[in-house]
């Protein structure tokens, strides 16, 4: 099994691509211990995509794997997360995004 699988998705991610993205995530988790999503090319996203990221974070945790996010967060992607209530407005890094999805996926130790 490979150690890392990097997923790079480009442009807007909406419900019409959601099934394809889910399958890519499932395949990636089947192939590697760590799945990294590169955020640098993501544009606007809708709730279906945000749900998938939360679901992926949960899946990783349950299976003892890692799910992380890297790269520069584009303003369009950040705006979608702010609109959904996952982040406050302001400068957003990939670590901020990873942290909120980890928390949403039920990170141990939180009250």
């Amino acid at each position, binding site marked *: 099994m490979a150690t890392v699988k990097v997923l790079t998705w480009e442009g807007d991610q909406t419900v019409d691509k959601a099934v394809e993205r889910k399958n890519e995530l499932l395949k990636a988790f089947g192939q590697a211990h760590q799945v990294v999503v590169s955020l640098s090319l993501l544009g606007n996203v809708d709730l279906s995509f945000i749900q998938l990221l939360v679901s992926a974070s949960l899946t990783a945790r349950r299976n003892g794997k890692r799910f992380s996010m890297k790269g520069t967060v584009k303003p369009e992607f950040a705006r979608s997360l702010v609109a959904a*209530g996952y982040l406050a407005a302001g400068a957003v890094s990939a670590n901020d995004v990873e942290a909120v999805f980890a928390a949403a996926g039920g990170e141990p130790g939180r009250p």
Partner: protein
Amino acid sequence: MIERFKEAFREEAGELLGNLESNLLTLEKDPESAETIGAIFRAMHTLKGSSAMFGFDAVAAFTHELESIMVMLREGAFKADRRFIDLTLRSRDLIAALLTGSPAELGTDALTAEFKSYTEGRIAELEEAKRREAADAGADTLALQPNDVRRGDSPSVSGPLRRYRIQFAPEPGIFSNGTRPLLLMDELRRLGDLKISPLSDRIPPLEEIDPEKCYLAWDIELITEKEENAVRDVFIFVEGVCRLVIDKLPMPETMPAEAERVQRLGDILVERGVTTPDRIAAVMTEKKKLGEILVEEHIATTEQVNSALEEQAFQRQTKDSSRQELGTSSLRVASEKLDALVDLVGELVTMQARLNQTAIGLRDPNLSTIAEQFERLVSQLRDNAMSIRMLPIGSAFSRFRRVVRDLSAELGKEIELETAGAETELDKTVIERLNDPLVHLIRNSIDHGIEAPAERVRLGKPRSGIVRLSARHSGANVCIEVVDDGAGLDYDKILAKAVDRGLVPAGGSLSEQEVFHLIFAPGFSTAAKVTAVSGRGVGMDVVKREIEALGGSVVLASERGKGMSTTLKIPLTLAIIEGLLVRIGQAFYVLPLSVVDGCVEFRREAKARQTRRVMNYRTEILPYVALRELFGISGAFPAIEQIVVVNAPEHRLGLIVDEVIGDYQTVIKPLGRVFKGAEGVAGATILGDGKVALILDINKMANAAQRLEAIAR
């Protein structure tokens, strides 16, 4: 001790002088702006007071004279014209020279006398003009009217503020009818102050999720002037396909005195219908945090508790902000302290990597969890430390307004400077090092690019030329463009000069980019004469060298007769990068994650039958390079290797490595003098176990591989 305070004052004065210059250039474009005049006066006043306090008596006395002149300007004795702006800018330069002890063009007495002579002359002219006007109209001489300072409109509040708690849970099938809940959130945001808490506890893992269904719900707190109907109207088209509860709540500051505190967590959960007061009372007897107990006993989910805590925090914030006075929101920190902080954070990043490796090696799940959480905290600390170093590039752009103004006056040209993306942030060290290259590029545009006004009119162009400076983020880099609408680069002239200098053989055929890049050769210039501004050919090679030293690249584009653009692509920060750690033999390397596209398996036997080193990757055919061969690493290679597909500015290819270990935050350490020229290596880093890993410069490494392959053929 006093020297330390003087140094602090010099720094502050430097900022004031920078703002003063910027405001003066603004005033030149809009001489009637009372706001700008006020800002200039305040800067003078502050400089006068502070310089007196710290013993800069010459500065204090000089700015006292300037302040008196500014008073006349503010009271409308005359309007600022070009001569006034020139004199004030020269005064600003003189103050800067006095503060740093540099030599000045004129002394304070001489410049004060020149300024006073000018103002007296202006006032006399204006009064004479008014006397003539009054005499013509037969009226008495009018007294000069003071300027009316525009007062900003105070914000009007149309009604009292109201507070609503909204619980919004769309039905799972809501996406299929085209509803986009995020747009509803945006609409709510336009109504007032909003706090949104998403509830994700219904989202299943990937194996179970139907990605076309909605699993999210929200608890929302809204503070707005609008009535409840306006809030309900936001959801008017989805009311039948969601669970919607809107409760009107009292504003925190309107609560009775005994309740004049932020609501308790238990009260919020009871109000939301999550639990009952009796249950809350029962768990309160246990000596634990309420939230923890409620989750442990499955009375509430983690997300419900978190959401209620966020509402509590929002209430606290709303109460506090209505009482709090706005204070200073920034403070001055010495650069050395900042650099020391970043160094320490860098060491912490290295220790965190070591902890990670140890956790993986010991296969202890508890330690792994701690290591992961620690990694997250260190990443946040790293991002915070790096963001402190980040400054908007607008601070550099504003300096260039003066450069353009003075240069265009010197050369008798009319030039407008346009800027865009001033808010783009990058590392302060990068901004400092960009100053000279950008000044040179602007000088080149003004001196060689943009034509004289008469020539421009003859060519059918506007009389005034344009130099446009823009900045934008592009992944992990920032792109800065200098564009002008001048004559553009002359391909034939450049080529002829290059042949003349022996840089290229005569009769060869070169592409446009290849010819344009000849101007980066040391001493290269096609200028007919050397001016004080440029033409010595000592600039463009220095520009390229400086940008490459920053890890960036320069791209030229030009259209004859239309203009030229120079694009600088530079990394956002020089200190820490996100990388992918790979292994070849016993050696470790880091590839910048910003250029990594993906990784696939590579089976050497299957490829051995091919004559060309190419691979199928998704829908493309890509070349690949075996790094083991390129770096001359001996030893057996694994049965299954990995190809890392990378995107560099000039190359897209695969790199064969033995093993991809994982993503890795690295602190970039310089190579030192001995290895500084190593091609294809951008720096080095220390791994958790003390080993050194080289950080690869993919573009340069790929160029080297190409050259070696050409030689081999």
